[in-house]
């Protein structure tokens, strides 16, 4: 028998109080442990209770949340019934916490150095006189360049990746034995994600930390965790050493999750064959677009060209700020461009397009956030019907018929017809958006991150639907995404954008197998699960 693990959770139940006295349990009897020097990952989709468990272990449940049963043991002490005063002795010095959203996790009015110093002062980790030096040392340790200078910056002056480093410095400042990381990279770009997780691994190794790593990304957990706990709706579905869980999943839920993760199943749509000799339906030729004027101008898209052939899926990938959404909006005629030519279905676009789109039947854009793209006052029937009305179809019965037909095609039940966008689920909402785009029977769809707000199983359903529609109706897609695993699954051809420049393009298979540009290589290296895959191949 080895020494007791730093975190032991037994039959844990957590509930939230709501309204007048009721308690709703969201975690129903969860048990696991995190060992010294090891990483245990809680994996689950939204609503699985993973974040709630992490907060309970950190003593950070909101005022309306409470442990309703079971036991949490931190460093050998039962903390289940701890008051906030008792917790104060553990915060920071026993358990360090790395939050989800670095951009709003630091006090915007306080210099970052002072926020780290606060951690040192509260726990008297170092003598008062040594605090300044220790702050700079910590910043240097978490990989911040010019640490002495950066200590005097305010949070808004740092990037998301730098902020997460600062937060990690805060978490480890008082030398805790445990680190709870709640989706620490979900708000960051994939290349930044890799460097942050590398940093965490290094700190774990140096300080012998027990790490509880919360994530929705199975591939990330595969790459980073020693042990896995798969959660669904507050119940443990599977748990054990990572390799064992993933190679021999015991629960059907884990199997579903595995099959839905794009990184785990790159050949899901391999049967789809695009005709390379098909005519070009969308051509972007040396297009540039600048925002702002004079010295403050930003070139969002810089001399980018791409061709979309009929019946194919062309992916545009890049990190935030790479210009991929701008390119999508240019192609959809939503914004103008400064140089180059855009040809859609044989018609050249005006570089300064009218606000009103008269060619909705050629090309439609599906927005990233369907909720924002629909009038909150309209119900689903009116939303899907609107394009027909705008197109001048007077016959009410005919409009209704076509709405029903298209809802059928995107597999939405008639019960959603009188619901408003807010009242349907995220996946249904995106189906409504797709239905609305398709009701005018366009030949081309521009899909701007159509699944980035969705859970992986819902994402898989939407992608299935898109691929099926594409085949049935010979549609052509421009598929904008930051998710390289997803792009590898669905696209025929690809353009890689970096700071508005197309650094590489070609057949998806070729680019993934043999990336020519260093940026593409960096991007591909950062895909979670890639490391494991290579290891298997070798």
């Amino acid at each position, binding site marked *: 028998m080895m020494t007791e693990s730093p975190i032991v959770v037994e039959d844990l139940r957590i509930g939230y109080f709501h309204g007048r006295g009721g308690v709703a349990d969201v975690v129903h009897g969860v048990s696991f442990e995190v060992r010294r020097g090891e990483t245990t990952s809680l994996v689950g989709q939204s609503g699985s209770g993973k974040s709630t468990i992490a907060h309970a272990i950190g003593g950070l449940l909101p005022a309306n949340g409470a442990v309703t049963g079971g036991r949490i043991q931190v460093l050998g002490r039962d903390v289940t019934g701890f008051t906030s005063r008792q917790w104060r002795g553990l915060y920071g010095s026993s358990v360090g916490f790395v939050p989800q959203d670095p951009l709003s996790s630091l006090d915007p009015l306080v210099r970052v150095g002072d926020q780290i110093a606060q951690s040192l002062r509260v726990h008297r980790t170092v003598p008062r006189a040594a605090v300044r030096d220790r702050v700079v040392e910590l910043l240097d340790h978490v990989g911040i360049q010019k640490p002495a200078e950066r200590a005097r910056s305010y949070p808004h002056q740092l990037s998301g990746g730098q902020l997460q480093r600062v937060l990690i410095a805060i978490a480890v400042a008082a030398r805790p034995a445990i680190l709870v990381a709640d989706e620490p990279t979900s708000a960051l770009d994939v290349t930044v994600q890799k460097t942050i997780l590398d940093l965490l691994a290094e700190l774990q190794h140096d300080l012998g930390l027990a790490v509880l790593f919360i994530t929705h990304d199975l591939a990330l957990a595969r790459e980073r965790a020693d042990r896995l706990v798969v959660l669904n709706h507050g119940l443990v579905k599977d748990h054990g050493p990572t390799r064992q869980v993933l190679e021999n999943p015991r629960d059907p839920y884990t199997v579903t999750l595995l099959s839905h993760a794009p990184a785990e199943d790159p050949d899901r749509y391999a049967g789809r064959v695009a005709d390379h000799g098909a005519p070009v339906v969308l051509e972007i030729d040396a297009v540039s677009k600048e925002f702002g004027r004079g010295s403050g101008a930003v070139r969002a898209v810089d001399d980018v060209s791409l061709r979309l052939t009929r019946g194919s899926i062309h992916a545009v990938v890049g990190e935030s700020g790479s210009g991929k959404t701008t390119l999508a909006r240019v192609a959809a005629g939503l914004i103008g461009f400064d140089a180059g030519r855009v040809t859609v279905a044989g018609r050249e676009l005006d570089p300064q397009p009218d606000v009103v789109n008269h060619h909705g039947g050629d090309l439609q854009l599906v*927005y990233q956030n369907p909720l924002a793209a629909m009038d909150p006052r309209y119900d689903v029937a009116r939303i899907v019907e609107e394009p027909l009305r705008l*197109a001048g179809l007077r016959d009410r019965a005919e409009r209704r018929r076509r709405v029903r037909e298209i809802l059928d095609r995107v597999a939405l039940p008639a019960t959603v017809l009188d619901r408003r966008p807010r009242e349907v689920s995220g996946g249904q909402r995106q189906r409504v958006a797709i239905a609305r785009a398709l009701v005018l029977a366009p030949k081309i769809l521009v899909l701007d991150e159509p699944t980035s707000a969705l859970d992986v199983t819902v994402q898989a359903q939407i992608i299935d639907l898109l691929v099926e529609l594409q085949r049935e109706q010979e549609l052509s897609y421009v598929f904008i995404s930051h998710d390289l695993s997803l792009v590898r699954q669905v696209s025929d051809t690809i353009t890689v954008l970096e700071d508005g420049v197309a650094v590489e393009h070609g057949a998806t298979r070729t680019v993934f197998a043999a990336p020519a540009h260093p940026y593409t290589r960096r991007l591909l290296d950062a895909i979670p699960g890639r490391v494991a895959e290579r290891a298997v191949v070798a």
Partner: protein
Amino acid sequence: MTTADLAVPTTTRFRLRQISVVEWLALVVVALLVVAVIAPGLLTSYDPLAPDPAAILQSPSAAHPFGTDYLGRDLLSRVVHGTVRTMVGSAVAVVIGLGLGTVLGLVAAYFGGLVDAVISRIVDVLLSIPGLLLSMVVVVALGFGALNAAIAVGVSSVAVFTRLMRSETLTVTGLPFVEASHHLGGTRRQVLIRHVFPNSYSAVLSLTALQFGLAILWISSLSFLGYGAPPPEPEWGLLVAEGREYVVSSPWLVVIPGLAITVSVLSISRVSQFVKERVL
């Protein structure tokens, strides 16, 4: 983040939760106000203007629940009959503010450029003068009287409505669903009527409820200072002003009309909030 999925399908429109005690009270007060405006005779049998030398400055009793004033007039009757003046005055004020403000705000947002700059500058100037002071200036120009006080208060609230209508219109115009509607083939006019106006107007309607309460306060303040309805009109602010001579011996002459204002304003805002949350 997966916030999009966290919104569990609910039909908030139909979830009428229990009406709280405070809301019941507010509903009752508003109902009483409506009765007082339409049929004041149902609530009191006294003539608000008839003096009664036998009942001067009586404290509240069964015969005179709110007491009587220095001429022996029944205070309950005066408060009830004063309701219609206060409510009509506030309605006039709000209609002026809402009407002019909506048009100006919409014009500024729709045309932009020079038109917007001129309107916005005037709004800035109007907002740099406190509303009560501005309505006093208008009263100086128009002369005293109940209607003039109402117009003055209305004119003073034009700027607030204009600014809100303008900013709401601009905000909604910038939202993705408006762009999406254009993308689906909607012309400017269609999108303005179907999406922009309905979505920006709900904020303006909430402001209307708030401004109605403010108008009651401002108009009664103007009457209190003697710029509004002339005596012997039973306007609420004027009742307080008349009662102030007797505030030591007969405090109810000040407190009751004053509370009538407070309770009405509170109830109206509460009910409008209720209507906005549960019914609309």
